């Protein structure tokens, strides 16, 4: 590689192993996040959440929605924590712990799938619009066309959009995922396009242009890597809102219909008429939703900080 100068020989060359192409930015971000307590906290919450979701069947002896203890539930009381059911029963007589654990699985799958869908479509549209917009010239109409479509999507309230999609596709889990995903598309598209247009006016873009770097490379190799940060951060933050939106759609009765599938949002609905007698029925899933959302938010914020070159030390 290089012949180190004498002055430098005292300094161990730790960056030596890093390769030249790509990766450096994310590797650096990862290194910085390992030293950030916020990131650790967020990552731990997410890790616990993911582990619970994956190993749900091993964490409980009951089936979700089994209503095994239905006989113990009366119109005025729901059995609280006991030896067999350490979080008690829900109003249908199912084990609360089982419902919570399997609910995590639902939230994770719904959140990740819908956000991934929204991110993929949104980032694609955003890159096209932002790329052609930033370059200007004869193809900037592509930017205009895409953004008008996105504006139209944005003008429809996301809940209404979700309801419509659920109505068209029928009440099943895919329609919930698609509904939440589609509702996120305009956010990602606008965010990415906006930061790409901003970056497109930077000096380094002009400098790259002055070196004859191809337009496609300027967009993909220079503008996009500088613009994608906020979008990735938004995606982690959207995992939080997606979790909440799944709950909201379930609350409205648009979510998973199968009573054998545990879902935090529907648990909230079921809990509301027993709130006086057994507030834990609402508090537990409420907490779970909030903590999960918090985990993603902490992680997202830390990621944003780690990716921002200005905060690097």
């Amino acid at each position, binding site marked *: *590689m*290089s*012949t*180190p*100068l004498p*002055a*430098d020989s005292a300094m161990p*060359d730790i*960056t*030596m192993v*890093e390769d*030249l*192409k790509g990766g*450096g*930015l994310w590797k*650096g971000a990862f290194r910085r996040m390992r030293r950030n307590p916020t990131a650790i906290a967020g990552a731990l919450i997410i890790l616990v959440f993911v582990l619970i979701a994956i190993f749900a069947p091993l964490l409980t002896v009951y089936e979700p929605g089994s209503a095994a203890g239905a006989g113990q539930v009366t119109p005025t009381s729901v059995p609280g924590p006991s030896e067999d059911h350490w979080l008690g029963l829900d109003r249908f007589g199912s084990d609360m712990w089982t419902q919570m654990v399997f609910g995590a699985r639902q939230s994770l799958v719904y959140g990740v799938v819908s956000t991934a869908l929204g991110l993929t479509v949104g980032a694609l549209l955003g890159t096209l619009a932002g790329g052609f917009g930033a370059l*200007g*010239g004869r193809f900037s109409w592509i930017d205009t066309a895409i953004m008008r479509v996105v504006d139209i999507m944005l003008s429809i309230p996301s809940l209404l959009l979700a309801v419509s999609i659920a109505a068209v596709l029928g009440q099943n889990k895919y329609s919930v995922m698609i509904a939440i995903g589609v509702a996120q598309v305009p956010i990602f598209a606008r965010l990415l396009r906006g930061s790409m247009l901003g970056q497109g006016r*930077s*000096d*380094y873009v*002009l*400098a*790259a*242009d*002055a*070196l*004859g*770097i*191809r*337009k496609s*490379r300027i967009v993909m*190799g*220079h503008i996009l*890597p*500088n613009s994608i940060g906020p979008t990735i951060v938004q995606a982690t933050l959207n995992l939080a809102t997606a979790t909440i939106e799944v709950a909201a759609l379930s609350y409205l009765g648009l979510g998973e219909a199968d009573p054998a599938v545990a879902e935090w949002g529907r648990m909230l609905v079921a809990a509301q008429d027993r709130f006086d007698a057994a507030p834990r029925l609402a508090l537990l899933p409420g907490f779970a939703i909030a903590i999960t959302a918090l985990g993603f938010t902490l992680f997202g914020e830390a990621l944003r900080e780690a990716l921002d*070159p*200005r905060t*690097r030390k």
Partner: protein
Amino acid sequence: MTVRTTTRRHQGGPTEVLLSVRDLSVTFGLRGQRAVNAVDAVSFDIRPGQHVGLVGESGSGKSVTALAVMGLLPKRGVKISGEVSYGGRNLLTAGDSAMSSLRGRDIAMVFQDPMTSLNPVVPIGRQLTEVIVRHEKVGKAEARDRAEALLRKVGIPDPGRRLREYPHQLSGGMRQRVLIAIALACEPKLLIADEPTTALDVTIQAQVLEVLKDLVTDTDAALLMITHDLGVVAGLCDEVNVMYSGRIVEATSRGLLFGEPRHPYTGGLLESIPRLDSPRGTPLRPIPGSPTQTIPWSEGCAFAPRCRNKIDRCTEATPTLADLGDRQLRCFNPLAAADTSAEQVKA
């Protein structure tokens, strides 16, 4: 070449011209706004290996001239006329892709601010190799070796490690060295440097200029140095074009410009530089007013409102760029010359 730029402007160099700018005009103005003539009928030549200065205050149109030559001005709201010929081609009418493959390979540019001209999230090694790979048929490994050699050439210690670093890990002076290395990576025939040292500390300025000078000389590249700093011109340029309000007002060799300035603006610029050999206590003589105090060239001389040598004619007619043999000069009442008569211009 037109008669206006005779070979007498240049002592004995080769007569072929690398870049010839003829009557270049750039007008900014979106619909509904007053059009601004940023560059007005500017003509100059650059011969292979020659170092030419383009001097003027902020807003005199020097950077716009450079961007027009590079084909980097936005298409919308900008009207460009005239001719910029390079290798027998008019760059102003060349297509986008033709210009793109010319930039970086034949003509490269160093910008003013090294803090923002490098991509913050891309390691500098990649920003260097990218240019080499773009313009030359070389593999990644070879491009990397060349990048390392280039960094060493511009005086960056331990280039192998620096290649993997990000711009924020480098000091301003080092970043400008990197930018110079990037610009000269493909050994362009012409380097345009747009105030390359303005954003740097004075102590670093001299070092960076030295690097720039060495590299340009080594690669036999011609240099168009855009600056407001006559000190930079004194150290680097063979020929100097002084611009005011979008037009060239005086063009001559370095020796004549410093020894015997004829345009009152050039004279004013020189007098406003503090000198070590002037007696202590001698006040600096700034040029009064600001570049915004100007009249349109169509109504007279744009410098007239600030000019010490102003005569009535200056606000009645527009001075033309006259060829005095040893220089070109746009003035009705120039500063006294040592031997040639000023009457020649007035006539």
